[in-house]
């Protein structure tokens, strides 16, 4: 009989699911019951674990191909983490070692932000001009296969790692896109990312369009420079359009420091853990403030707006510094923490959610724009990456109309 192609590939010890495992699990559970807690087994926990034991036993007896015990256990861990939220992940010992090496950054990458959500691997954002964008991957795409293998039961962190590596490595993906009848086969060649540049462009004489493709440590200073230049060169400026669409990369700190450039000494975001515990509030710094004059602003957002970008957007909205135009943001802004396990693997778990200054949760909820962006004509396909020239971008035009009509929310600042 033909074996399953994935059979035991990840099971170096070749161990099979044995009755011994079931027995041992039962004993551990009983032990928990008898007051030698391996973990505190309330009766409901005990019952739930018995269910897992039953499931494992059935698989060991009836599944058509014999299965490796270790792979099943890891599958169970992955499944458990995936059932929490898109940011919670499992890391194998190798992946965890890699993770600990930290932010040295990979040599090369695909330039895309992915999450596993409701068992689907979705592209949240594609970095402007990066390898994934060049390969034709678009925000909102669902990845069905990576290098010919069906994407099943992987967690966000793990799958993101498949898109990092040595420059020139080719990763083949099959993507499903809304409106397409057949999936697309695309190939991404990993490459070092060029430093993202904030671009500024005049629109209709009195307006300026500024795009932040994604956040890095340099973003706050760069934005400050752009705004200072504008103030000096275009004193007659009537409005600013800040494009944060398809922007899902950036840390909380980068988001807070960037918001600080626009808001100064104000509460920007706060985080809260279990039962509201461990509340931390992040404020901007007075000396970071550059936008110290009144300037009507529209921020463009969409489903690809996440993480640092959402922090900026939420704060701008709260202080009525800008109107939001476009589509609801993704809602990805949790604080995660890694917890190593005894066997060297690790869990990456969300330990706190982000809240807007008015106390609305961002994680898993997203931010609604005040003004819905015009829907593209049917069959138009996904928006291009990077976005089109400002003059040809329907949402930029819509923003201009909004600014011209004076309908944006503004807040007066003392002239500085």
């Amino acid at each position, binding site marked *: 009989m033909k074996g399953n192609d994935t059979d035991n590939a990840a099971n170096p010890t070749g161990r099979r699911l044995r009755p011994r495992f079931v027995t*041992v699990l039962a*004993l551990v559970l009983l032990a928990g019951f008898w007051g030698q807690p391996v973990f505190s087994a309330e009766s409901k926990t005990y019952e739930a674990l*018995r269910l897992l034991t039953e499931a494992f036993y059935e698989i060991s*007896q009836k599944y*058509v191909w014999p299965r490796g015990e*270790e792979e099943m256990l890891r599958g169970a861990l992955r499944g458990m983490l995936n059932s929490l939220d898109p940011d919670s992940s499992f890391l194998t010992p190798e992946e965890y070692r890699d993770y600990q090496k930290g932010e040295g950054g990979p040599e090369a990458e695909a330039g895309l932000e992915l999450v596993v959500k409701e068992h689907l691997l979705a592209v949240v954002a594609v970095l402007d001009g990066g390898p994934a964008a060049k390969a034709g991957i678009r925000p909102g795409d669902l990845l069905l296969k990576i290098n010919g293998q069906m994407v099943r039961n992987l967690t966000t962190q793990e799958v993101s790692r498949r898109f990092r590596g040595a420059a020139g490595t080719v990763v083949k993906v099959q993507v499903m896109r809304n409106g397409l009848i057949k999936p697309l086969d695309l190939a991404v060649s990993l490459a070092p990312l060029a430093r993202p540049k904030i671009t500024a462009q005049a629109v209709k004489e009195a307006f300026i369009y500024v795009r932040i493709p994604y956040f890095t440590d340099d973003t706050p200073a760069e934005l400050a420079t752009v705004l200072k230049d504008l103030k000096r060169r275009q004193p007659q400026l009537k409005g600013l359009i800040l494009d944060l669409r398809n922007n899902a990369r950036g840390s909380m700190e980068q988001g807070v420091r960037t918001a600080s450039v626009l808001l100064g000494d104000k509460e920007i975001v706060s985080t809260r853990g279990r039962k509201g515990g461990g509340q931390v509030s992040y404020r901007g710094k007075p000396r970071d403030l550059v936008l110290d004059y009144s300037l009507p602003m529209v921020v463009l957002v969409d489903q690809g707006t996440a993480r640092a970008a959402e922090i900026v957007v939420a704060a701008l909205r709260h202080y009525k510094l800008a109107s939001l135009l476009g589509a609801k943001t993704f809602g990805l802004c949790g604080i995660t923490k890694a917890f190593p396990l005894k066997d060297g693997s690790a*869990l990456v778990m969300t330990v706190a959610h982000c809240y807007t200054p008015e106390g609305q949760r961002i994680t898993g909820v997203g931010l609604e724009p005040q003004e819905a962006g015009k829907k593209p004509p049917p069959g138009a396909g996904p928006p291009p990456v990077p976005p089109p020239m400002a003059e040809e971008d329907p949402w930029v035009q819509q923003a201009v109309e909004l600014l011209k009509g004076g309908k944006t929310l503004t807040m007066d600042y003392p002239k500085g």
Partner: protein
Amino acid sequence: MTPAPRPQSETITQQTDETVVTTMFRRTQGTLGMFLVMGLALFCAGALLLSLLSVCPAQHPAGQDPRQSTATPNTSGRGEDPLLQTFSQALSLIEQHYVERKTAKDLIYGAIQGAVGTLDPHSSFLNPEEFRELQIETKGKFSGIGIEITLKDQVLTVVSPIEGTPAFRAGLRAGDQILKINGTSTKNITLTEAVKKIRGPKGSKVTLTINRQGFSAPQEFAIVREIIPIRSVKARLVEGNIGYIRLANFQDQTDPDLRFYLRKFKQKLSPCKGLILDLRNNPGGLLEQAVQVADEFLNTGLIVYTRGRDPHRSMRWYARGGGEGEDLAPLLVLINEGSASASEIVAGALKDQKRALIAGSKSFGKGSVQTIIPLEDGSAMRLTTALYYTPSGQTIHEKGIVPDIELKEPEPPKGKTLEKIREEALERHMKGEGITDKPWDQPMTAADLQQDPVLKKAVELLRKGLPKRGAPPASS
């Protein structure tokens, strides 16, 4: 992704990609001897299932595993198994540190789902609600009022009342907008929720507030629920003594319904110029039904056999003769890449036994049998427990059935999205103009055939005359 919602009858047919059947499983339990467990075997990662069996799911949780009692007492086992320790540690870390409080059951459901996720794509975990839904679908009947519904421009809309049902008798019509169900607004309702609210116990009443073009104000329809059969078989005569039968899937009522139409065709088609059995986009269903459907056309010979992990537990199914379709020839079976599992069993048997010519495009290629294994809390696992083989010994797994005559679906016009194509088909269906919307004895016209280019070619083939295939050679 939000593709246009497909219409649903009051059963959820949306996730029904495949299916299958009942087999009996014998299991030896340690030294305690044998005991019988009836299981439900399903083909494919799909969704339909059969009647509930007398399973005692609580027979073998850990505490009662006979192996445990016969094994050497393994008291030192606790804490020794590193994998197990890892799992326990993970569970307690999540219970302590995750940002929200999670119930142990939710976490374990996630874990089982993950463990089953390491198996083949056709194995899956079903929570109690999904398991109940599966049972309704494979029974081929449910208690409700008999309408197909969809969301059209975000308004809950009747696609069609099913003939002979309470909804049909009450005068509901295609295109009716359902504004309220039992007085509750349907604004922002999902199809699944709507289905749940409209269904209910037999004999109970549901009140729908209907908006219809021509009504000066919305009107209320109070309708008493009954048992509604789900029709998986549709048929039409085609001009020139040809019969057409389409099987949408394989559930409990499939073979009885098929027999009904075969009997009618035997009377109407003389001389018979041919019969088309359309299995395109039929995701499968109950194995037992696949065997019976094939048996309607075969007089003798092997239909299919399965092999599980234990080779001694292989099963073989043979034709018994006396089928209603044995005299209807030539037989042309239509398949495409959407024909899976049970469909492939039928196509494979009829092909190998040289009873039919197969036309269309290569089938899906799903050669495994799934068994539904209920777990003690009302959830269940769908596990791949066997592979099946056509009479000639071919596995269908990843290979599919290759048609004798290739008939390709035309490429959709450029720029036409899947959504658009579905919408158009739905529009036709709402107007009662789909090929199978008209009475079976009203012959299909050239205009009808225009809707389905592959069927049109199949009819042309039969009109030109196919070689009649006789009984299978005695040796097979």
